């Protein structure tokens, strides 16, 4: 199915901003320029680019530790993002949250959680606020296949359908939860079969198919906004590296690695762009801009000051804690 040509360009730009940022972080980590727990999003760039392109900037997003693609796609500017991950006072969260806890309400990124599954009930609450206020917003939450086995998933889906909340649950099924393969943590073929357990609409989609992914999320968003309730979307994709940067992934079978390489969303999207009559030169110009943006963001982060120890007394409560 064809989508709007400008929209595809938008998706391409979001995708490549994610890819270039991730690449930069991995090279910084590799070179030892900074050290951190880092959950690479390599392989899942397009899933969130297409999803977030289907939303309004004011829509809410709740994501997880592996959420950099979601955050960037939703619009978090790169400078404070880099600074946060590197632990600087100029970070989105003044360095207090770090990569696992990026928050940026201006782009609708309300929570990034490090606890598997905990974002789903929170997304319901954001959707509930929108429903009560009738402000037309919706909430989207992204999580992994592994997260679909935790209690919060179940409770959240049931409640969302019961109240017909304007929320979209996007399961990015990358076939692994840490080192555990999909078939070793559940006995169903698809997470999306679980939608029926709540009377919810469920849709399974190839997350690396930009047109399909965008369309599915757009439809779910329209349904949500129309008061027709939540949707569970299972976006099939691949985690193209280990669970976190540097982690062993020898447990992944050879055939899986090969399949993964074949399905790489980046060359596939590039090809689609050409099909949509974008020229190599146009695309390269976009990449050059993004490269510059990424470099500037990294530089900004490294140049920024560390947070001051007094920050420990600030933001605990509304009132500052006495020294």
């Amino acid at each position, binding site marked *: 199915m064809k989508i709007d040509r400008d929209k595809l360009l938008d998706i391409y730009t979001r995708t490549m901003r994610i890819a270039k940022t991730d690449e930069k972080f991995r090279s910084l980590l590799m070179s030892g320029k900074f050290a951190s727990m880092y959950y690479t999003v390599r392989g899942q760039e397009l899933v969130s680019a297409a999803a977030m392109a289907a939303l309004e900037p004011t829509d*809410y997003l*709740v994501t997880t530790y592996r959420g950099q693609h979601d955050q960037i796609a939703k619009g978090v500017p790169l400078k404070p993002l880099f600074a946060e991950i590197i632990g600087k006072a100029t*970070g*989105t*969260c*003044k*360095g*207090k*949250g770090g990569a696992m*806890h990026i*928050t*940026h*309400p201006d782009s609708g990124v*309300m*929570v990034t*959680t*490090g*606890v598997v599954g*905990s974002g*789903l*009930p*929170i*997304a*319901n*609450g*954001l*959707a*509930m*606020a*929108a*429903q*009560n206020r009738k402000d037309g917003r919706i*909430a989207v939450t992204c999580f992994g296949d592994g997260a679909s086995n935790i*209690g*919060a998933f179940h*409770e*959240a889906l*049931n*409640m969302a359908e*019961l*109240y017909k909340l304007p929320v979209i649950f996007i399961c990015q099924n990358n076939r692994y939860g840490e080192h555990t393969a999909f078939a070793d943590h559940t006995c169903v073929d698809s997470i999306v079969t679980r939608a029926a357990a709540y009377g919810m609409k469920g849709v399974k989609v190839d997350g690396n198919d930009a047109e399909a992914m965008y369309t599915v999320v757009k439809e779910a968003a329209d349904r949500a906004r129309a008061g027709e309730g939540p949707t569970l979307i299972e976006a099939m994709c691949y985690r193209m590296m280990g669970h976190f940067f540097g982690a062993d992934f020898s447990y992944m079978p050879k055939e899986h690695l090969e399949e993964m390489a074949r399905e790489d969303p980046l060359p596939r999207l590039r090809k689609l762009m050409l099909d949509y009559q974008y020229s190599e030169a146009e695309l390269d110009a976009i990449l050059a801009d993004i490269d510059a943006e990424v470099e500037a963001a990294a530089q900004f982060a490294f140049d920024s000051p560390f947070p001051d120890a007094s920050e420990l007394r*600030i*933001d*605990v*409560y*509304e009132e500052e804690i006495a020294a």
Partner: protein
Amino acid sequence: MSGKITMAAALNRAIDEAMAEDEGVILLGEDVAAKQGGGVFKISAGLTEKYGEHRIRATPISEQAILGACVGAALAGMRPIAEIMLMNFLTVAMDQIVNHAAKLRFMSGGQTNVPLVIRTTTGVGVGFGGQHSDMLEAWFAHVAGLKVVTPSNAADAQGLMRAAIACNDPVIFIENILCYGLQSEDPGANHIVPLGKAAVAKEGTDCSIITYGRTVLDALEVAGQLAEEGISVEVIDLRTIAPYDEETVTASVRKTGRAVVLHEAVKAYGTGAEIAARLNEKLFGELKAPVQRLGGAFSAVPMASALEQSWIPTKDGIKQAVHATMNWKK
């Protein structure tokens, strides 16, 4: 203001007032809507009729979903109130409270905050047994970012509830099941009791009893009995457990030189430990006797009434503790 009011009615009034004032105030919990009778303890009776089913939401039995939804709504700027039927059931949803509600303001660098009131009830003495009677306030006091409140009478319940709803941070609001029906002076409409301020429930000069919740009543009764023996007891009702009103407590004990710390929760590692430790830090060398701590026995709360009554601090035990401070010699 003439007349009396029960704690249940006072809580209902506080929530009603807050809901009338601000559309952002909503209530979620099992059985809380009109269709189910307004909550198992009827605290939300009549509110659905006034504010509708979108503001009073009866939920499935899903405490994680309840608290998570409240966290989300609070992040969006609403002022949700969660009713968690009994305190022990918080154990299925500690993650939302501790990892999320308490920390999101800090972890977001102050970009977001969670103005949420988690109402819950508990209490020893009704034969509810091991899984329905725990007092877990010490856990929450240990978590930065949470406030912990518990009233001992109807007027405070009303005033503290209004303050809790107005607070821009998450508040654990603990109601004692045995107090719902107790009457105390009606404070009238729009009564507010600020968080973080203890009350001197009774003045005295010989020994301070520092307590909160239902045991304030026991302490007052014992103080009355001891007055007849010529012992002047001061009773401090913390009202807010965390943040702790160190000023009021320290001033009282500096004056009396003796302290008994009292709560229903298990004594070991309870809030009384922190209070005793702080008193010893602040008043080292000034105390006339070691701080006495009283709390629940070190076991699950037993069901059998005979055992349950031995489990909680008794009035006799409180009296003995005060005597111990009065008669203390090396």
